[in-house]
């Protein structure tokens, strides 16, 4: 990584947002460096979207410090936003306009010249794989296409930072993979990306580094691999004994691994070697209904940190 690649483009210290008597974001600290792909992972209501609105230089913070591209968003919102690309959770595409017009009109908001934009629109349609939808209305496109259009729209001003709020929520698995591929390309091109998600696999796929948020606070920070290493084990053995027996069997299972978590439908045993642990469980005559050995994921990290699972 070169020196410029390490430049800090966004920093938050004690960042807070309070609505009335509800604290949505309770004093969080983080930094994002140029070219980095940074994730904010957490369940619904963790304060991710509120954080996103603040770092989009739209919603004013109620406390703490926030610096984006060297400026204070409470003072210089429009100047900062000139260099941000924002992909909102609900797309907010214009249904009255055609696909290409959505990109064109958006580019005009940044004062970009018409002639330049006509060329840029073609390039973006190609990138979003929407060339044959050029003259379609938004409603004629699938959810995945609409999301790709929203991402293309967020790129029209060639932003320094691309912000994506839950980019694949509500998309089917195939559409998600197409989208991940597009985001991956942006990442390879050195675009700084900040995204929120409640999908662990998404965070693992797309993020160099992430923070885990819950109840307005940051619970942990690091690369996906580091977080898994710190807060989970290498492998996880999932055992189902039936709803009634999970709770009572857990203490007997615990001695075969590093740690055990009991969920309503299954028991999770954290261990360096899942297969060996399963063998021990069987040898002890505990007879699970089903069993599964898998790699530990960010889901396990979250469970460890909060005692709750990410997606209820």
């Amino acid at each position, binding site marked *: 990584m070169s020196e410029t690649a390490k430049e800090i483009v966004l920093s938050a210290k004690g960042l807070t947002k309070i609505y009335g008597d509800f604290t949505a974001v309770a004093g969080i600290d983080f930094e994002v460096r140029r070219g980095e792909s940074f994730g904010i992972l957490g369940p619904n209501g963790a304060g991710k979207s509120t954080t996103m609105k603040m770092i989009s230089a739209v919603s004013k913070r109620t406390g703490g410090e926030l610096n984006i591209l060297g400026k204070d968003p409470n003072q210089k919102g429009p100047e900062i936003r000139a260099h941000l690309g924002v992909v909102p959770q609900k797309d907010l595409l214009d249904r009255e306009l055609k696909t290409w017009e959505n990109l064109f009109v958006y580019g005009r908001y*940044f*004062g970009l010249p018409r002639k330049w934009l006509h060329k840029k629109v073609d390039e973006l349609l190609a990138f979003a794989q929407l060339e044959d939808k050029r003259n379609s209305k938004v409603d004629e496109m699938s959810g995945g296409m609409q999301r790709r259009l929203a991402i293309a729209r967020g790129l029209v001003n060639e932003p320094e930072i691309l912000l994506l709020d839950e980019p694949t929520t509500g998309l089917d698995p195939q559409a998600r993979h197409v989208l991940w591929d597009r985001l991956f*390309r942006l990442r390879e091109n050195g675009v700084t990306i900040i995204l929120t998600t409640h999908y662990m696999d998404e965070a693992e796929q797309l993020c160099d580094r992430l923070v885990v948020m819950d109840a307005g606070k940051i619970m942990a920070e690091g690369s996906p691999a580091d977080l898994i290493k710190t807060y989970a084990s290498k492998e996880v053995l999932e055992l189902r004994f039936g709803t009634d027996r999970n709770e009572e069997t857990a203490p007997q299972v615990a001695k075969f691994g590093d740690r055990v978590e009991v969920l309503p439908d299954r028991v999770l045993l954290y261990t360096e070697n899942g297969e060996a642990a399963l063998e021990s469980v069987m040898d002890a005559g505990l007879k699970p209904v089903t069993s599964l050995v898998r790699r530990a994921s960010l889901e396990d990290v979250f469970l460890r940190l909060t005692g709750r699972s990410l997606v209820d």
Partner: protein
Amino acid sequence: MSDLRFTPGQVVDVAKAVRGGSWRVAEYRMRNMLHWWAAIISFGLGNPVLYLVSVGIGIGGLVNKASGGHLLGGVPYLEFVAPALLASAAIQGVMDEVTFPVMEGFTWEKYFFAINATSVSAKQIANGVMLAAIIRGVWTVIMYGGILLAFGAIPFTSLLPLMFSSLIAGVAWSAVIMAVSANLKNDDGVFAIIGRFVIAPMFLFSGTFYPLDLMPLYVRWIGWISPLWHSTQLGRDYTIGLAEPMWLQAVHYVYFALMGVIGMLIVYRAFVRRLGE
């Protein structure tokens, strides 16, 4: 499949982007209006023609015959109603662009939030919406004014001041209406109520179809607070020589200025608050 050529942060001229936001929003609103161009043109042309034929010539014929032309000081009825019709068309035309488009922007489609994610500020969005509404108003008074001329309902020399006093009424009134729509969380029939209980009485009791003096004193106040009455009075000053004293003409314009300024201050507050939540 293609890769993007990308030079982050290089293509936007920040000073230019931040400066011209209002115009770009107006540009967008007009592009949106163009989808309804056929309706806007046919309403703009059809509405005056229908009114002038039915009220101006039809009812006018009756009024002129019954009064022997003396009732309105010798002014033909068509010429009497012409400034009022132009003013009400301007008010309606401008207002159309600050009611449902604002609901759409905040509540139904939330477009304003997408616009506000760019270098465009909340105030600029409000200004852009108003700007496009004014342009629609200009278009309306030009078409309507042209038809009034064609019908011989106004003298040619009065055309410009008449268009101005009508447009200004439309803008002032729309600032107040936009202050309402900018604060609405959902429609809930508010616009229907405004239409029935504000616009309709305003249209009927602003001296539109007869001099306000003919009304008993206890309903005349509706006219006095109505922008339509103020605009109609000014229009009649310009077209049929109503000849109000200068100070009274000034009062009309001060009234519009107050409506416009107070309306827009409330509009700005609502836009800044809602987009910055």
